């Protein structure tokens, strides 16, 4: 049993007990506990089951490297799976649930996989993909999907909120241990703008647990003093609970701040993602202890030696009464001393080194502990908890020399610097033979825009493990002047690299040595992969799943690649490491989304009349980021009924359309006419002042990209209307040409789209309605079709265009956006007895289709040229050039075989499905029917009481009267006749009144 000690615990506050539950059982801990220390303190070592074999899993580590102790945390809208108990703070009322077991943690049916382990070798998943072929879909996938995977996906909407923040600094120091503090002090004293971030809520890192002496003080006291000094510096920002998740080009760093994980529901954002630009980064991220690979090393109770002393010193938790320590280096002896000080027993220290350890080993011996040099663990005994270890000669094959009963095994295989941030942006590593570790290669750092190093590794993250070298390294990394803080700790003997224990272990033992306890990868799996031809460490990772999932192999990678190297009989540096990718540990999706959720998930653009639409039954559709009324529903009315009513109202009375979203770009200057002649296919320079002209815009490839009415405002200025979706794009397109190609032309543009509210007033009663507003002569004579007038209309500052997209008598009125709602209401009021009513975009679409007017995005799709649409009349023959002209002369563009615009009338009057294809004789190379055309727009026309459609058909206009076949759902074929695309009022008499 693990338990809480009577005394001690530097991080807990015994005056503040906190209650929580684990799988429904009530437990208690203290303020300052992590979930892991609280669980251990409450006697709970078994916390989950492994991924593949469902083996019992206990807490193994005390920090970010923990592979096992993941839980589902919270309930309902605050439930989140895979929360790492070692890095999550305890809070009152926490609800924890273990993962990956069924029906219970104590008794798990999936554990039968464990008995069948020989059937789940390395590459099991890949092998199931391959053979037999039917088996993946019908056998393996359903079973694997049910039994594999970690945690449950949340089912409720996240109750918390999240945010981003931007920050800038000269130097970001990552890691609040003694290295980070030293670097921040050195840089802070130089006046640099420094940020120092620490992922835990506590400063000082390992040194405060391991008992170093700094500047003649205990590490704890020195850390307090350093913090005091730093807090007094206005140029230094300290941030706890903040992890540097990733490092990117140009000193861009993502910092993940867990603002309120420990105070859920207090109204603060749960997480904050800092998006930082740092001039330089010092990674003082410390090191992670490696496990040792001996048989049974995954049994609950086998822990990292450093974690064992963390639990005792920081949280006054005893992981067990009798702890056997297994090591290949001196550091683990510190754990023995800590346990002895806490009054716990250490039956033995098993040291793989034939010559044993140094000063620390001596100190342990002097406390009366058996130290067994040159020995190893042959096997750990136990099921859901360690019961003892069988000791062997490390040099041998694992024959038991003696059995030592114990309930904890504290192991240390040495330390691996945390090189993740260093590596994210291309920093390289070197294999340090003497220290048996990969550490940052100072000659190959990640470089910034200036080609210089943008990261410096410092302290343990740079491979420095002794206090004095840590302090000196960090001080110099920050360019510190004067002497570094002076440190003292015991001298240490050299580490002996141990990748499997004992070194001569046979297959039986190797199949029980876990490398990756989260993903159930054993020494035998990596060796099998090597035998099957896997040489690249990256391929081996994917094949065996070594180092995958939520911990990304923080404890398993180095051991795994060392085993692979041994199996391939080549040196470790030749095998190399897998790629370190951000984030360092998983960050929440909420933090990535930031504030973008709910109403502000995306910007929604609203016209000045949007509120009116909302309160008058508008059924909206998205058009770009705008929401436009598709139609206005009256009580009890269906959508199609509303659309039909609105169309009839425009044809018979008068309708109002909110056209404010149309793009409006002012183009002005001595060269503006010349410029627009290039932009449009037709001539705009000759348009007289006071008139309007419909224009087409093509890209360099000749394809039609936008259309709209161009207005000549004055001698040197034009207003170009674009489609709703095209406004920003076309403005940028114009500026692109002006700034990059024709930079010497005197033309200025301004996007005035949002300056004006624009209302189309369309229908036979349109003129009468405008006359009622008064102030402007809108008669046929004074205000002819395709002209515009400026003045006062009903007291509004208005510019009125007599243009029509419906085929009816129509005016479009533009007023300052701030007055748009007032004009809209004035028109509705003045036209009540004229039958005025708003109409939406769908009515607009049908009205224009009845007239055969094209719509960008319906009749065009980026492969259509104006000539395909019968718009030759809008293409200037006189102009020497315009954008797209040359392209339109290419052979394929002038081919008579091109699909061209026609009208389509179904023989039975029904409505063709939009996008339906007309089939041709024969089949293509893929065995599909040949095609000869497709529907581009299709509607029910209430005006004509039948289905109408526009389509592109091979040689279409030459084939009037022919009947095409459109196969639709369920083998049904709709027949439609090719007709003129103008279905209604071909002579244009209705708009020209």
């Amino acid at each position, binding site marked *: 049993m693990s338990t809480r000690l009577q005394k001690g615990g530097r991080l807990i506050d015994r005056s503040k007990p906190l209650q929580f539950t684990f799988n429904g059982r009530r437990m208690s801990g203290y303020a300052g506990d992590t979930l892991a220390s609280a669980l251990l303190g409450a006697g709970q070592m078994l916390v989950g089951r492994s991924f593949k074999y469902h083996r019992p899993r206990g807490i193994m580590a005390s920090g970010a490297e923990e592979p096992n102790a993941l839980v589902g945390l919270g309930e309902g809208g605050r439930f989140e799976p895979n929360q790492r108990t070692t890095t999550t703070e305890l809070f009152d009322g926490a609800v924890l649930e273990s993962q990956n077991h069924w029906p219970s943690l104590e008794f798990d049916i999936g554990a039968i996989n464990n008995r069948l382990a020989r059937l789940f070798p390395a590459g099991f998943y890949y092998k199931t993909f391959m053979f037999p072929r039917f088996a993946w879909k019908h056998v393996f996938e359903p079973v694997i999907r049910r039994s594999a995977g970690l945690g449950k996906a949340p089912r409720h909407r996240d109750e918390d*909120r999240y*945010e*981003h*923040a*931007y*920050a*800038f600094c000269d130097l970001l120091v990552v890691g609040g241990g003694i290295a980070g503090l030293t670097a921040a002090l050195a840089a802070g004293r130089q006046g640099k*703008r420094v940020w120092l971030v620490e992922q835990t809520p506590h400063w000082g890192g390992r040194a405060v647990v391991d008992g170093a002496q700094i500047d003649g003080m205990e590490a704890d006291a020195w850390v307090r003093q350093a913090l005091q000094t730093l807090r007094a510096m206005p140029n230094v*920002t300290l941030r706890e609970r903040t992890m540097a998740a990733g490092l990117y080009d140009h000193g861009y760093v993502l910092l993940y701040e867990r603002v309120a994980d420990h105070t859920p529901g*207090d*109204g*603060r*954002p749960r997480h*904050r993602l800092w*998006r930082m*630009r740092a001039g330089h980064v010092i990674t003082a991220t410390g090191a992670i202890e490696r496990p040792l690979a001996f048989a049974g090393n995954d049994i609950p109770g086998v822990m990292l030696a450093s974690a064992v002393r963390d639990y005792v010193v920081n949280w006054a938790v005893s992981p067990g009464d009798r702890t056997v320590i297994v090591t290949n280096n001196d550091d683990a002896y510190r754990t023995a001393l800590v346990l002895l000080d806490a009054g716990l027993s250490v039956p033995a220290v098993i040291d793989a080194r034939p010559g044993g350890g140094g000063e620390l080993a001596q100190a342990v011996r002097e406390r009366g502990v058996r130290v067994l040099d040159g020995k190893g663990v042959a096997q750990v005994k136990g099921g859901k908890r360690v019961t003892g270890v069988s000791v062997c000669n490390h040099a041998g094959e694992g024959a038991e020399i003696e059995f030592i009963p114990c309930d904890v095994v504290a192991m240390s295989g040495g330390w691996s610097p945390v090189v993740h941030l260093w590596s994210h942006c291309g920093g390289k590593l070197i294999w340090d033979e003497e220290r048996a570790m990969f550490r940052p290669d100072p000659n190959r750092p990640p470089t910034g825009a200036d080609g210089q190093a943008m990261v410096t590794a410092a302290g343990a993250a740079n491979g420095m493990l002794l206090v004095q070298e840590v302090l000196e390294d960090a001080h110099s990394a920050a360019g510190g002047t004067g002497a570094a803080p002076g440190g003292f700790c015991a001298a240490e003997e050299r580490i002996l690299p141990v990748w499997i224990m004992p070194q001569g272990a046979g297959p039986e033992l190797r199949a029980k040595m876990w490398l990756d306890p989260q993903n159930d990868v054993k020494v035998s799996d990596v060796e099998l992969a090597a035998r099957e031809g896997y040489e690249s460490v990256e391929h081996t990772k994917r094949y065996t799943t070594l180092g995958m999932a939520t911990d990304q192999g923080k404890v398993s990678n180095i051991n795994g690649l060392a085993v692979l190297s041994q199996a391939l009989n080549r040196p470790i540096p030749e095998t190399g490491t897998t790629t370190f990718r951000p984030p360092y540990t998983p960050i929440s999706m909420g933090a990535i989304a*930031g*504030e*973008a959720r709910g*109403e*502000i998930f*995306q*910007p*929604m*653009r*609203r*016209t*000045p009349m949007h509120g009116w639409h909302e309160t008058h039954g508008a059924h909206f559709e998205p058009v770009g*980021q*705008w929401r436009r009324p598709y139609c206005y529903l009256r009580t009890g009315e269906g959508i199609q009924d509303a659309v039909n009513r609105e169309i009839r109202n425009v044809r018979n009375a008068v309708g109002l359309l909110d056209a404010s979203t149309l793009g409006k770009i*002012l183009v*002005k*200057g*001595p060269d503006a006419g010349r410029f627009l002649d290039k932009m449009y296919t037709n001539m705009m320079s000759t348009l007289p002042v006071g008139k309007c002209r419909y224009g087409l815009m093509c890209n360099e490839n000749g394809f039609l990209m936008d259309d709209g009415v161009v207005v000549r405002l004055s001698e040197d*200025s034009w207003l170009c209307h674009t489609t709703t979706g095209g406004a920003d794009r076309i403005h940028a397109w114009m500026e692109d040409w002006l700034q990059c190609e024709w930079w010497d032309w*005197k033309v*200025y*543009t*301004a996007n*005035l*789209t*949002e*300056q*004006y509210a624009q209302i189309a007033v369309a229908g036979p009663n349109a003129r009468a309605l405008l006359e009622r507003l008064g102030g402007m002569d809108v008669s046929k004579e004074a205000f002819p079709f395709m002209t515009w007038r400026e003045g006062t209309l009903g*007291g*509004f*500052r208005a510019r009125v265009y007599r243009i029509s997209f419906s085929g009816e008598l129509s005016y479009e009125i533009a007023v*300052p*956006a*701030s*007055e748009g*709602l*007032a*004009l809209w209401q004035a028109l509705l009021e003045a036209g009540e007895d004229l039958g005025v009513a708003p109409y939406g975009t769908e009515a607009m679409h049908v009205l224009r289709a009845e007239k055969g007017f094209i719509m960008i995005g319906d009749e065009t799709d980026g492969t259509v040229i104006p000539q395909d649409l019968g718009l030759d009349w809008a293409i200037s023959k006189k102009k020497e050039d315009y954008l797209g002209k040359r392209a339109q002369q290419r052979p394929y563009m002038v081919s008579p075989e091109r699909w061209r615009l026609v009208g389509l009338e179904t023989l039975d009057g029904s409505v063709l499905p939009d996008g339906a294809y007309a089939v041709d004789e024969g089949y293509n190379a893929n065995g599909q029917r040949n095609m000869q055309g497709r529907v581009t727009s299709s509607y029910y026309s209430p005006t004509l009481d039948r289905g109408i459609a526009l389509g592109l058909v091979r040689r279409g206009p030459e084939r009037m009267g022919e009947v095409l076949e459109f196969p639709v759902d369920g083998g049904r074929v709709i027949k439609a006749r090719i007709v003129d695309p103008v279905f209604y009022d071909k002579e244009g008499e209705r708009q020209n009144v």
Partner: protein
Amino acid sequence: MSKAVSALQGEKHAGFVEVAEAGLRGMVTLRGDLGASKVKKAVKAVTGLPVPAQRRIEIADGKAVAWMSPDELLLMVPYGDAPATVEALQQALAGEHHLVADVSDARAVFTIRGEKAHQVLMKLCPVDMERFEEGEIRRTRAAQVAAAFWKSGPEEFTLVSFRSVAAYVMGLLEVSSRPGSELFE
């Protein structure tokens, strides 16, 4: 003029700072050769202010001139004065290649007021607020939309966005100024 209403009609929220829609403001875009003496004179004549240097804004007596790009200024005047300002500029710049346009109604204006006003902007705009100076204007983005802001008082910033996204920007400001979400003490 009584017909004219701003996008949010003065909506405001009190969080750890106060965020409010500031109502209608006269705004005139002027594009031209900012070094030309004719342009400088015209700007001076209508606002009483000099042409600002790069990324700067000149403010006095309820009027302002902001540098927007190497060939663009934004002139700010009371809302009702915008049409006359356009007129005056056009007359003064006759014969000079330029563009003048009233954009008063294309914009929404917000104020962020309080000791920690800059912290709200830090959450939304990729701008180094510690180095942001008085008299500086920054064209940037607020989360997903274009915006510009400047310091308009000892503890106040004014932010301008497009009118159509006024509700989105107010949503950003409101959520970013909620009590408890201060970035620093």
